[in-house]
């Protein structure tokens, strides 16, 4: 065992420190080896079937609690060990075992261990006579396939299976999504149209049909499809089967309808449609922001500002805040509040920098930090980041399991855990967190728009970037080397039976294969993440250019507007129409007779209004 670990350590060190990719393809992971060794041990210890049968309901309940509480790793472990024990005891299939299989599949899916999850669900689906969990298993399999986008693995066995009429809709929707992913919209449309109202995917299928109709430029058809989702008889009644995604779908459908109406110039209808989104909806802020746009197009600038206040997107570190600030500036321009508009544009310009700053030595780093936050991550970006997080979690969990196997095989299972470099790892994690916190505070300082601080803030942000990058790379190195450091002296006499020790040796070999595969995954994952970051930077740069341009135009408009206002004022003065302030002073001196007027008209301040009563 020690020899193997030493070789693993060398491998990990070589790859993580030198940064060289592992040339060989990841070795095939064949759990059969350790699984069969484990089964050999399990059969040897002899599990009493009646005892296990008695305990099963209580144990399944424990798995269910873990599954519903989202403790997927513990749930999958408990369910997996129970399934193996039941197999060794030769328990006949029944509702409880089926429930256990379903819960294990759900936990594994939550964990991301999809191959076994699919296998277990298919096992339930293929059972004759049909299992009581057939329906839930089918729905779970469809959900897993949709979420992972692995249509080939999920769809193939289902197509070959004989499904009842009530189950066809699940397959139809899945096929439609697969066709969409493969770029066959016409066939996908046919499949989507075949989804019936009693299917849980009815609303989602209408939404996708609306999207496809828009792609073809058929707005009427799109509106019709969206109306099928939102128009309901009322009083809690629906014309289709509800699913857990219905509230989200309803919000999205209302938003899409409102946008369609806005695009068609149906302003009043668009306003009423935006109003359908409730305050607790996750899309509420977005809806109010878009509603502000509709008000702006109607020329109702005061209401536009009120809607922007409600959206609360600007100055809040929210995606899209520069757009919200721009709209606020233009609404203020519309109200002839030139000074306030100028303040908004000045602030935006100080946050975004000007054209002259672009391409400077530090690549306008601070601006990029600000702008990158204003852009929502694309689904691919989010998925790639999730992969990166999962990789580190996998490595930590594999190291933990490895330590457990070693402790069990050492004859001293109760000895304290040796957690190599744990303190260092905690400190680096703390450094990362502190750097992120400080970056956030820098963002707030930037929002003050003080130009004198800008240079210093830029330098600080550069330092923080450096700290965070170094901490991240050190954590990666630690994650790899800590594994190898666990291998210290495991020479104590084993306390377990020979069969258990045989299994543990096989398991160690399995874990080492897992570690090698993880290391091999590191380099392509890093490349993908770098690609994602570069993409985000380019997106940010592109948007930044557009925002800067619009800000500059806004500033010019404030100057022009102010000039125009001044011209009108001078013209009025020349024609004897005085502003109220001058009029009051002249009137006090008795130089104004009753026939003269002042400009602009202000009924509330008109003295006669009060004197007349």
């Amino acid at each position, binding site marked *: 065992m020690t020899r193997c670990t030493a070789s693993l350590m060398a491998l990990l060190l070589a790859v993580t420190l030198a940064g060289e990719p592992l040339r060989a393809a990841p070795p095939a992971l064949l759990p059969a080896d350790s699984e069969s060794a484990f089964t050999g041990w399990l059969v040897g210890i002899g599990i009493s079937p009646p005892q296990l049968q008695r305990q099963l309901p209580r144990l399944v309940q424990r798995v269910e609690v873990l599954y519903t509480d989202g*403790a997927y790793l513990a749930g999958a472990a408990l369910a997996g060990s129970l399934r193996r024990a039941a197999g060794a005891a030769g328990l006949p299939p029944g509702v409880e075992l089926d429930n256990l299989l379903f819960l294990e599949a759900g936990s594994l899916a939550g964990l991301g261990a999809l191959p076994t999850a699919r296998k277990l669900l298919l096992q339930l689906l293929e059972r004759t006579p049909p299992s009581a969990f057939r329906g839930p298993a089918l729905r779970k399999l469809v959900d897993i396939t949709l979420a992972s986008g692995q249509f080939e693995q999920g769809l193939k066995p289902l197509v070959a299976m004989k499904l009842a009429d009530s189950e066809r809709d699940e397959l139809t929707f899945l096929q439609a999504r697969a066709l969409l992913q493969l770029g066959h919209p016409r066939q996908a449309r046919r499949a989507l149209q075949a989804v019936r109202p009693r299917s849980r995917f009815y609303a989602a299928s209408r939404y996708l049909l609306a999207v496809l109709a828009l792609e073809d430029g058929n707005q009427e058809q799109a509106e019709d499809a969206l109306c099928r989702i939102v128009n309901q008889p009322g009083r809690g009644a629906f014309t289709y089967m509800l699913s857990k995604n219905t509230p989200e779908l309803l919000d999205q459908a209302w938003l899409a309808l409102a946008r369609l109406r806005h695009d068609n110039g149906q302003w009043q209808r668009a306003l009423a449609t935006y109003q359908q989104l409730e305050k607790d909806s996750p899309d509420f802020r977005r809806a109010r922001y878009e509603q502000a746009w509709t008000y702006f197009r109607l020329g109702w600038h005061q209401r536009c500002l009120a809607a922007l206040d409600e959206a609360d997107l600007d100055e809040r570190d929210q995606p899209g805040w520069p757009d919200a600030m721009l709209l606020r500036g233009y609404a203020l321009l519309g109200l002839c509040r030139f000074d306030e508009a100028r303040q908004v544009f000045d602030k935006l310009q100080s946050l975004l920098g000007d054209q002259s700053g672009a391409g400077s030595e530090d690549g306008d780093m601070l601006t990029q930090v600000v702008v990158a936050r204003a852009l929502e991550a694309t689904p691919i970006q989010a998925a790639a980041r999730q992969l990166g997080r999962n990789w580190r979690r996998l490595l930590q969990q594999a190291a933990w399991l490895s330590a457990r196997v070693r402790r*069990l095989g050492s004859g001293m299972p109760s000895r304290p855990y040796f957690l190599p470099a744990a303190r260092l790892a905690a400190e680096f994690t703390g450094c990362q967190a502190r750097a992120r916190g400080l970056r956030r505070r820098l963002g707030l300082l930037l929002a003050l728009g003080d130009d004198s601080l800008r240079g210093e803030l830029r330098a600080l942000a550069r330092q923080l970037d450096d700290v965070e990058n170094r901490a991240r790379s050190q954590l990666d190195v630690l994650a790899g080397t800590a594994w190898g450091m666990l291998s210290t002296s495991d020479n104590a006499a084993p306390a377990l039976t020979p069969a258990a020790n045989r299994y543990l040796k096989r398991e160690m070999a399995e874990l080492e294969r897992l570690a090698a595969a993880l290391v091999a995954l590191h380099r392509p994952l890093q490349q993908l993440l770098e690609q994602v970051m570069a993409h985000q930077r380019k997106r940010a740069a*592109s948007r930044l250019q557009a925002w800067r341009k619009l800000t500059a135009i806004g500033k010019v408009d404030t100057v022009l507007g102010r000039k125009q206002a001044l011209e009108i004022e001078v013209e009025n003065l020349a024609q004897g129409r005085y502003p109220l302030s001058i009029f009051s002073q002249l009137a006090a001196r008795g130089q104004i007779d009753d026939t003269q007027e002042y400009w602009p008209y202000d009924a509330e301040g008109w003295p006669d209004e009060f004197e007349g009563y």
Partner: protein
Amino acid sequence: MYRNEISLLGLLLGLLLLSPAAEGGPPPAPAGKGSAEQSTATARLPILDDKALARLRLEQNRLLDTLAAVQARLALLEQKVFNSRLVVRLDVESDSRYHLARLVLEIDGAPVTSRRFERPPSIQTLTMFDGYLEPGPHSLALRLWVRGPDEPNQGAPGYFAGSGLLVHLRERAGCHAVFKVELDGDSEAELRRQAEPEADWTVDITASYQTEAKR
């Protein structure tokens, strides 16, 4: 400025077709106004390699599968040999509008439970771990991210707290560890009145464990 306004077609489609539209639900909302310019600009950007992403995701799924199998086998071995059970629970009490946004539980340095709450969780008690480990000392570390009343659901949660506990498992005995969390802080109205650094948020985490008598 008007150029920057809505062009629904492009935005709906771009986002919908790019999105995996996971969990059988709808694709994410189309981007907001002012995206016409954005979509034109984005069209010039290099396309991310989604095939590489799919390959990596598939490989990671396989590795997670192997890991889960090892975990299940080890758990059964440990149960049959030592029968030392560990249950870790979280009790949350919150009278204010501060709510849990994310939690991570680590056992012996490895994350075993990680949960994110898109909306305020309706439950107050969570079982974070229930399984069998080898007897002896085990370290538990809990990290919590909390969202305040002034924070939107989309952004990163603004409040963080953590706690740790060392438990000793005994052979043929169960150990029940509980992290009791009490959250309190200024209301939204109070936060508006005050300057942000003066806002008051308190979290009390009490961690304890109890070992059952030997079976």
